[in-house]
């Protein structure tokens, strides 16, 4: 029988089960570690037991005929595995639909089948980590089960060394693809999979060492490989900067179930006119200068701005912004209680990281961080929101280029009849005038906001609307508006300057009550624009001048109430710094030192890891060259007497290399013996022709060999080795070291004894 022995095949089930468990472990980016491991463990162990029972556990065969009789057919194993899987899934993931919480009903089986089919798309339309529903976890079970079943069958039925690892490797593709963008890293999975495959190879590799020796040599090698992978994997060039392909980009998202069709931007005037309507209350730390975001509007058709529509289901996690990650100023946790807000948009902050809203089917736009409910909002709903407040540093922002984002610089240039829109040219001309003398995008945006604040007044009774015509009327005629006009005018004018912009609708911080809870009312509604910068993402600007509050007092302009003002260590606020930057006059673009230093910080220093990898390789090679001869000598002394005699001859060949024997491989046994006889002292050289004759008889004839012959051969070898060490003219140490270190020599000592030296 070829391949690994019966016992080794049985033991390799441990490795295939481990590899299948790694597949389940890989789903941790999709569901979270704790949620999948129980399912994965069940799905890895049960099919292995079924295979062991159905495919005939390891048996020792004497003849091929007995083997043929003892090999059981495959189909019972497959049928029983399928039944067992349905039973396990029904009793674990679909308990509530099973008879006695165990047995599946016909409709339950249909649900299971439908869940397997639908789970991939459901996961792809969900922000990870996905909810741990049975309908989704069934995919984990199916993948792990198939990997364990196929791996175990291959391990028991074939003699190949590495083939049983193939099912797990193929199944691993599923969680890796589905887990793109999920929290955590695939690195532990890769390391674990390397370990499992290494274990499989150790168990099933051809026997060259006793089991203990295999373990002593192999386990450190496998661990070293896993460590090298763990160290080098995440630091390979490009792995940090390149975004892996994500199937989510190709999947069509389901539309939100309830949308009122009214943009929050259109409701600003109405809410301002009835300012005392309670919208929501906020419990927890909340600075008076923080704004609550309701939604983001990023598409403009010349008459309206439209909110984001890339809403994905989420269990609460809000992924990081793909546009950039500014430094974090602080992390805040708040509890929000909804009042009369309605619609689907949940008040959030910039940038939320986690939302815990029991009873709500949450949706999130990964780009903007906007949170929505899939089923509308009711008064009294409470949820917790975790926020990572970004620190926006004007010193850095002032030299950053605008992001290359054509979708957010697009403006309709012509009307429905194809004629150019004259209002657009007017807006562009005003934007150019407002920002004249600016040298960098940030300064442009600041001057644009400053120009709007300086030349226009805030008036809640202004005409609502934000079409081109409305904006032109606002800028040229009335010069009065609410934050709706200020924000949208800024956004459109910024786009005419090729600055990517969008509009955000939200609320100011509200009024703090006696119990520390801030009450946010309809009069706190506010809109503001944001501009996108390279490497930082979206930065808010506040072009609306001081506005009337519900109490009749005048609030400070929003631009003076930015998150940066809460930084205690900053002696200068962002608003003060912004005024300074807006007022600066430069002759030309300043050196982009900030950008360069940022790039330097983000750059991947790959050379230490390449050096570490190369060092590991060199050390491993030297170790192999060092222990190789020892392993080879031990290997050659094992086996039947024939193998021992051949082993002694091979050892003599290696010894004679030290006496100047050339290693071209074209020398026959007789020629090598002849060389040794002329090169060595007579007491050693005279033994070689007889031994060569014995070797030739063994290799090409049918001479019977006794153990005594093998012992005599190794005695001859010892004499030859001693003679080689004593002879004059032996190659110098560096020549011997060179010969031993050659790749060919290292490869030869690890080669199987039956393959011969070529």
């Amino acid at each position: 029988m070829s391949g690994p022995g019966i016992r080794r095949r049985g033991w390799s089930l441990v490795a295939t089960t481990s590899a299948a468990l790694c597949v389940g472990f890989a789903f941790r980016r999709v569901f979270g570690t704790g949620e999948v491991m129980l399912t994965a463990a069940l799905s890895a162990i049960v099919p292995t037991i079924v295979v062991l029972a159905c495919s005939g556990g390891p048996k020792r065969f004497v003849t091929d005929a007995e083997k043929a009789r003892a090999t059981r057919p495959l189909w019972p194993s497959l049928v029983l595995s399928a039944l067992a899987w349905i039973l396990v899934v029904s009793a674990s993931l679909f308990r509530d639909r099973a008879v006695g919480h165990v047995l599946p009903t016909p409709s339950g089986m249909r649900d299971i089948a439908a869940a397997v089919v639908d789970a991939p798309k459901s996961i792809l339309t969900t922000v990870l980590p996905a909810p741990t529903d049975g309908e989704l976890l069934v995919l984990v079970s199916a993948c792990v089960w198939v990997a364990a079943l196929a791996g175990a069958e291959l391990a028991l039925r074939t003699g190949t060394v590495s083939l049983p690892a193939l099912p797990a490797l193929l199944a691993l593709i599923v969680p890796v693809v589905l887990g793109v963008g999920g929290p955590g890293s695939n690195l532990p999975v890769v390391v674990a999979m390397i370990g499992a495959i290494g274990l499989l190879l150790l168990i099933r590799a051809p026997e060259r060492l006793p089991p203990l020796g295999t373990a002593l040599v192999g386990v450190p090698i496998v661990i070293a490989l896993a460590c090298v992978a763990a160290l080098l994997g995440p630091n390979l060039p490009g792995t940090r900067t390149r975004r892996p392909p994500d199937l989510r980009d190709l999947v069509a998202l389901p539309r939100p179930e309830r949308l009122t069709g009214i943009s929050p931007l259109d409701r600003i005037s109405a809410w301002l006119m009835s300012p005392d309507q309670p919208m929501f209350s906020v419990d927890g730390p909340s600075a008076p200068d923080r704004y609550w975001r309701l939604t983001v509007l990023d598409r403009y058709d010349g008459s309206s701005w439209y909110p984001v529509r890339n809403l994905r289901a989420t269990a609460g996690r809000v992924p990081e912004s793909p546009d950039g990650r500014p430094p974090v100023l602080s992390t805040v946790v708040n509890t929000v209680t909804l009042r009369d807000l309605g619609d689907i948009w949940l008040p959030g902050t910039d940038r939320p990281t986690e939302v815990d809203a029991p009873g709500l089917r949450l949706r999130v736009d990964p780009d903007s961080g906007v949170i929505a409910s899939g089923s509308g909002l009711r008064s009294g709903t409470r949820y917790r929101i975790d926020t990572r407040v970004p620190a926006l540093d004007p010193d850095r922002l002032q030299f950053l280029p605008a992001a290359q984002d054509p979708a957010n610089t697009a403006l309709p240039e012509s009307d429905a009849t194809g004629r150019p829109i004259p209002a657009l040219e007017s807006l562009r001309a005003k934007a150019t005038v407002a920002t004249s003398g600016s040298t960098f995008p940030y300064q442009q945006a600041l001057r644009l906001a400053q120009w709007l604040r300086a030349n226009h007044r805030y008036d809640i009774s202004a005409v609502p609307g934000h079409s081109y015509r409305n904006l032109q009327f606002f800028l040229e005629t009335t010069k009065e508006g609410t934050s709706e006009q200020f924000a949208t005018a800024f956004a459109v004018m910024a786009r005419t300057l090729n600055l990517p912009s969008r509009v955000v609708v939200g609320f100011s911080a509200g009024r703090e009550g006696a119990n520390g809870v801030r009450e946010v009312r309809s009069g706190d509604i506010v809109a503001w624009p944001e501009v996108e910068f390279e490497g930082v993402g979206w930065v808010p600007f506040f072009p609306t001048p001081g506005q009337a509050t519900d109490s009749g007092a005048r609030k400070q302009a929003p631009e003076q109430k930015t998150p940066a003002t809460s930084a205690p260590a900053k002696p200068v606020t962002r608003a003060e710094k912004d005024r300074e930057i807006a007022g600066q006059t430069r002759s030309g673009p300043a050196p982009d030192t900030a950008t360069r230093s940022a790039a330097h910080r983000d750059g991947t220093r790959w050379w230490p890891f390449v050096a570490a990898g190369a060092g590991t390789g060199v050390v491993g090679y030297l170790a192999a060259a060092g222990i190789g001869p020892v392993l080879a000598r031990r290997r050659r002394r094992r086996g039947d007497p024939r193998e021992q005699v051949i082993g002694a001859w091979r050892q003599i060949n290696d010894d004679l290399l030290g006496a100047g024997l050339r290693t071209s491989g074209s020398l026959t046994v007789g020629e090598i013996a002849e060389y040794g006889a002329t090169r060595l002292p007579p007491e050693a050289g005279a033994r070689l022709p007889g031994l060569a004759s014995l070797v030739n008889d063994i290799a090409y004839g049918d001479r019977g060999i006794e153990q005594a012959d093998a012992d005599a051969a190794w005695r001859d070898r010892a004499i030859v080795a001693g003679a080689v060490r004593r002879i004059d003219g032996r190659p110098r140490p560096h020549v011997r070291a060179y010969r031993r270190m050659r790749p060919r020599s290292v490869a030869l000592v690890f080669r199987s004894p039956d393959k011969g030296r070529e």
Partner: protein
Amino acid sequence: MTQLATPANGNQPAEAPQFHAGDALRLFRECFRALGDNIERVVVGKRDVVDLALIALFAEGHLLVEDVPGTGKTTLARAISASIDASWHRIQFTPDLLPSDITGVSMFRQTTNTFEFLPGPVFAHVVIGDEINRASPKTQSAMLEVMEEGRITVDGTTHEVPRPFIVIATQNPVDMSGTYPLPEAQLDRFLMRVTVGYPDLASEIAVASGAGGGATIEGLPVIATARHIQEFVQVARHRVGAAQPVVDYAVRLARATRENAHTRLGAGPRGSVALVRAARVRAAAQERNHILPEDVKALARPILTHRLLLAPDAELGGVTAADVLDEILDRVPAPQPTAAKGHA
């Protein structure tokens, strides 16, 4: 009595060998050695060439002896024939020799009113072809069929030559004027080509002084009969095994001659077959029942060299076929011993 020995007197062989399972190879070795000793009495100091000639004899191959005049080419051929109690003929190849002078002719006999075939000199166990390159190509080609197949077709009738059958041809590579070099097809039909060479000083003195009793070809005792030789041929062919790695080695050597940059034409499959066949004889001559890579390597030069046709560049560069073969032998890996067996 199963021992072969050189008879002290008379030209008759001592006794026909009685083959048993255990002693066939021993008898082969003794016969081989006795023949070698016998021939060496007249071809002094050339034991290696004598052994190669005997290998060709027992391998049922043909021998081309190439050397300058006076080195004992014809003596070697005649000594072989004299050592065997078998028919032999000598053909002196000349430009005017006709094919029918070799093969024989059909003559009309008036007394019986039928055509009668008169066999030519090629109908003998040992045929000595002296200076074969002096015959016309037409005459040389008449040797092709008989050398390869051991039969001749005259007037539509096929005539078998006696077995064993060996052609020992000689040629002089120096005095080439008026000669017709043997074509490749015919060279390929010689199992091996050997060069006798001048004897060393001691041997030449011994020859000149008549040492060794002044043995003459005519006085050589007969060592074996044709039947002996034929039976020993079968011993070498059927009692000597060839392990697969050794056969592979022979084939790789032959293939390497075809793939060498210096050769325009290398040894064909007939070359590798000849190599294994001759190696079996060499193994039997050493009382071995299996061939070794050493056998293949030792016979590669005489068996393969004459089958190589060098590329023009190599010839202009002074490269010889022997140089090419030496390079191939030095480059092609020899099989290394393993505990696994595999016989062809």
